[in-house]
């Protein structure tokens, strides 16, 4: 295999990637993405976590430190399988607020502050530069290995030239596909798909090498297990601090690394992608690390002492004469390096253009910028930034020149990126976190990271002088970079991680606790932390004095003419207007800002819009208005509910009252007709007989008889009127009760005697229990006796048994006396039982002469007046009534009843 063949393969591979990206971009423009937005592509694109550092470096790491390399993959695994806890919220916020980068997220959360965006951008660029250099270096190294492996390798490449070409090629690719257009959301389907392809290539390459090692060189699984046990691989260093610390560091980095944020949050389309990736991405990492230990073990065994373990993946197949496999491995490593560099430079370029270049541009040329198409500026800025980032990486590579273990640079970059974590976590879960706190934390963390980790990584005497290493900054012993505050003997990485993240977090908390946030910060805080509640929208615009035309001009500068016109037209139509100029309502301004933010970041979009709307900040009043608005809605709905319940109650009461009134009206009509009937009958006979009498010429016997009839009828009338009067007095409650102590037995005796006048021809068997009747009641004895007489007379009248019996049972319970009158007649049918106490209720017409049917009605009224009751007692074999009276009726009780 010749070196030229290698270069050719490499070029073909790159051309294939270009083709993939190109085709996908074209399909995306035509809106036919289909499966390209599937969770699978998303998961594969996440694999840029596995850079050349992983592809080559993991084996070296394992050869040097045993199993510690696993932490780099286990940390992200924990984050992803726990996606419900954290990633879900992060991704939702990213989608909802059209976040373009991690700097944009931090700046947007903390009041759309551009200075925060700048700080995060600086951190990201500084942390990423050595990492990019690392990728360039790995490509150069792998080229070099092929060059030395070839006998005629005299024509081998110059390392510096290779790196330069690779950097230029990557810049070209990124610029071509990363800055084609300014999207409404910063998404790049072409690049993402190309990366997914590369992910497959590197996985296949590493698995192939692994399988070759396990089944080709070693004799299968059991053999490899034996070899691992016998190997000289260092023990798994049981260092709790380093193991735990690295787990944490990798977990933090997978969220905060700009390239991871780009593919995970910015390029995310829906939650399904994340759901699938929650286990598929850990599975990818699992497969990537499956054969690392075997490769390391076999490499140490087979290859000459002193060969670079970082390159075992490549050198092992070469040494075994497997040219094709080595080529595959080379392409895998190449893929790892290029995909990382492409996405990283793209993400950094977005940050640089949105948070540094555009704000500067707008500030420096506020007038001139008014008319021109800003999109050109943004895209140029990105292109230049991509070039600059790669130039920085190349410069770093040239500067550092010499060989540095891949793992150490990677971890330092991880720690740099992780400085964003405290602000990010606080921003997502703590509403109280504010801009000052975030800024203090970021600056502190960045400074400590630089001093304890980044600058020392160049070695003593390079960035920091030997004196600083030995005696500390300014000769202060407690400011030595690797033993800050006098903490000696700690692992340098752990030392840097401990101090930077501790003080970083401390400053975030302290700053937030002490200072007071501005209104926009508070609104954004509430909107981000409660993103799932959907209660608080992001900061909104009051209806300002913005000219729709000026807004349109600005939108065209950023979104492009067609997109801006479409947006404005849709908004105008939504407001029910023709044309392209909608009213600048708060809702429209919010939509517009979100669209602009998707292109140039939240801070810039906010600043540009506030220039036009004429008010740079939200006031506390606006804040309160939003808060009270939602509170009012809640309160209003609660009030509505209460009112509705009340209405239902009132309606029920009204319906009841109406039913009662109707019933009463019917009763009144019935009563009137009854009473006129009752009065009319005796009056008719009186009138007829008196007419006969006035004619004269009648025998005296007839006169006497007629006179007697008239007299009887008159008495009947009187009795009827008496009863009616009595009833009306009782019903009004204005009856005068004559309360005194009376013997129940005496009253019953009186009543029985009096009732004998009713149908005296019938002989009744009266059963009484005299012992129980010996009770003295305090009541109105005459009235009560009247009730007794009525009940006994009724029994005499209506009991239809052949040998009629009447049983009077008396019982006393809880201060009340119950007197039952039970006869052995047929009883009263069930359906009539509720009627008998009504006026003029007579069940049969058989004994009509007996009374007007007012008896039981009067009884009931008397009993009510006496503080007791009368009720029909069913199930006693005959007609049975139960009277209940209080043993001692008090005056007070009467007053209360009538009052």
């Amino acid at each position, binding site marked *: 295999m010749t070196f030229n063949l290698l270069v050719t393969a490499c070029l073909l591979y790159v051309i294939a990637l270009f083709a993939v990206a190109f085709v996908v971009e074209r399909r995306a423009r035509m809106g036919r993405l289909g499966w390209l937005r599937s969770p699978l592509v998303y998961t594969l694109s996440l694999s840029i976590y596995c850079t050349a550092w992983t592809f080559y470096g993991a084996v070296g790491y394992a050869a040097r430190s045993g199993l510690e390399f696993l932490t780099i993959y286990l940390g992200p695994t924990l984050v992803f*399988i726990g996606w419900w806890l954290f990633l879900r919220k992060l991704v939702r916020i990213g989608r909802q607020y059209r976040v373009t980068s991690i700097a944009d997220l931090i700046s947007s959360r903390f009041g759309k502050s551009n200075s925060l965006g700048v700080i995060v951008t600086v951190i990201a660029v500084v942390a990423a530069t050595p990492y990019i250099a690392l990728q360039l270096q790995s490509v150069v190294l792998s080229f070099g290995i092929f060059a030395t492996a070839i006998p005629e390798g005299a024509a081998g490449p110059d390392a510096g030239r290779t790196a330069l070409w690779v950097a230029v090629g990557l810049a070209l690719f990124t610029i071509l596909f990363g800055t084609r257009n300014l999207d409404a959301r910063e998404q790049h389907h072409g690049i993402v798909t190309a990366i997914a392809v590369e992910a497959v290539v590197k996985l296949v390459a590493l698995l192939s090498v692994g399988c070759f090692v396990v089944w080709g060189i070693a004799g299968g699984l059991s053999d490899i297990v034996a070899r691992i046990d016998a190997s000289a691989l260092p023990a*798994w260093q049981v260092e709790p601090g380093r193991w735990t610390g690295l787990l944490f560091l990798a977990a933090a980095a997978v969220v905060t690394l700009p390239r991871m944020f780009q593919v995970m949050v910015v390029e995310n389309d829906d939650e399904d992608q994340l759901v699938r990736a929650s286990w598929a991405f850990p599975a990818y990492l699992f497969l990537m690390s499956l054969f690392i230990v075997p490769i390391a073990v076999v490499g140490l065994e087979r290859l000459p002492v002193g060969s670079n373990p970082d390159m075992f993946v490549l050198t092992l197949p070469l040494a075994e004469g497997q040219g094709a496999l080595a080529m595959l491995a080379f392409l895998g490593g190449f893929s790892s390096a290029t995909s990382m560099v492409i996405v990283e430079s793209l993400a950094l370029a977005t940050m640089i253009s949105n948070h540094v270049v555009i704000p500067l541009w707008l500030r420096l040329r506020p007038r001139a910028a008014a008319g021109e198409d800003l999109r050109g500026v943004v895209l140029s800025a990105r292109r230049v930034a991509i070039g600059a980032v790669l130039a920085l990486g190349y410069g770093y590579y040239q500067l550092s020149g010499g060989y540095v273990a891949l793992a150490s640079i990677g971890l330092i970059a991880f720690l740099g990126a992780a400085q964003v974590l405290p602000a990010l976590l606080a921003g997502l879960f703590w509403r109280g976190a504010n801009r000052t706190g975030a800024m203090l934390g970021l600056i502190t963390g960045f400074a400590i990271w630089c001093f304890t980790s980044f600058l020392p990584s160049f070695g003593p005497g390079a960035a920091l002088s030997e004196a600083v290493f030995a005696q500390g900054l300014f000769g202060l012993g407690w400011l030595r970079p690797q033993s800050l505050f006098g903490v000696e003997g700690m692992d340098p990485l752990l030392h840097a991680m401990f101090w930077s993240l501790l003080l970083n977090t401390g400053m975030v908390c302290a700053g937030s606790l002490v200072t007071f946030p501005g209104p926009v910060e508070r609104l954004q805080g509430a909107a981000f932390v409660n993103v799932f509640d959907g209660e608080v929208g992001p900061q909104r615009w009051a209806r300002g004095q913005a000219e729709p035309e000026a807004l349109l001009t600005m939108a065209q500068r950023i979104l492009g003419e067609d997109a801006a016109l479409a947006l404005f037209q849709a908004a105008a139509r939504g407001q029910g207007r023709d044309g392209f100029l909608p009213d600048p309502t708060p809702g429209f301004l919010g939509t517009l800002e979100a669209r602009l933010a998707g292109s140039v970041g939240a801070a810039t979009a906010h600043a540009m819009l506030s220039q036009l709307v004429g008010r740079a900040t939200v006031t506390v009043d606006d804040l309160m208005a939003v808060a009270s608005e939602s509170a009012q809605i809640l309160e209003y709905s609660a009030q509505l509910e209460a009112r509705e319940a009340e209405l239902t109650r009132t309606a029920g009461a009204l319906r009841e009252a109406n039913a009662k009134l109707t019933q009463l009206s019917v009763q009144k009509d019935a009563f009137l007709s009854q009473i006129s009937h009752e009065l009319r009958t005796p009056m008719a006979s009186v009138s007829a007989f008196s007419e006969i009498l006035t004619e004269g010429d009648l025998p005296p016997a007839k006169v006497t008889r007629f006179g007697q009839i008239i007299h009887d009828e008159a008495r009947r009338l009187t009795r009827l009127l008496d009863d009616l009067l009595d009833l009306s007095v009782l019903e009004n409650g204005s009856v005068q009760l004559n309360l005194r102590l009376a013997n129940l037995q005496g009253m019953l005796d009186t009543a029985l005697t009096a009732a004998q006048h009713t149908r005296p021809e019938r002989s009744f068997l009266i059963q009484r229990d005299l012992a129980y009747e010996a009770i003295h009641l305090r009541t109105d004895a005459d009235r009560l006796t009247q009730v007794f007489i009525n009940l006994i007379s009724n029994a005499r009248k209506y009991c239809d048994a052949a040998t009629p019996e009447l049983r009077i049972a008396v019982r006393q319970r809880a201060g009340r006396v119950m007197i039952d009158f039970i006869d052995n007649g047929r009883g009263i049918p069930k359906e009539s039982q509720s009627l008998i106490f009504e006026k003029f209720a007579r069940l049969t017409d058989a004994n009509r002469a007996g009374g007007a049917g007012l008896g039981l009605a009067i009884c009931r009224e008397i009993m009510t007046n006496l503080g007791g009751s009368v009720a029909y007692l069913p199930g006693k074999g005959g007609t049975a009534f139960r009277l209940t009276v209080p043993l001692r009726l008090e005056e007070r009780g009467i007053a209360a009843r009538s009052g």
Partner: protein
Amino acid sequence: MAKAGPKRPLFLARASYRRRRLRDAARLLPIVGLGLLLLPLFLLTGTRDHLAARDVIYLFCVWLGMIVIAAIFAPGLRNRDAREGDED
């Protein structure tokens, strides 16, 4: 911010109840996983000077277990109806 209104039901139907418990399990998974990954630190007292294959096998088994469980959980956690809100 207080949760909105009195509309949050106190008790749930069987299906939603299951879904909530699944979410609890999903929250628990990384914590349990972390515990299992840290376990060897407590059990091993670093006297060995060579890597043992069973360490490798243990870690990879824990890893695989986490992936499988996460894959089992994943379909149930998909946000099928937004109306159920977030619950927590």
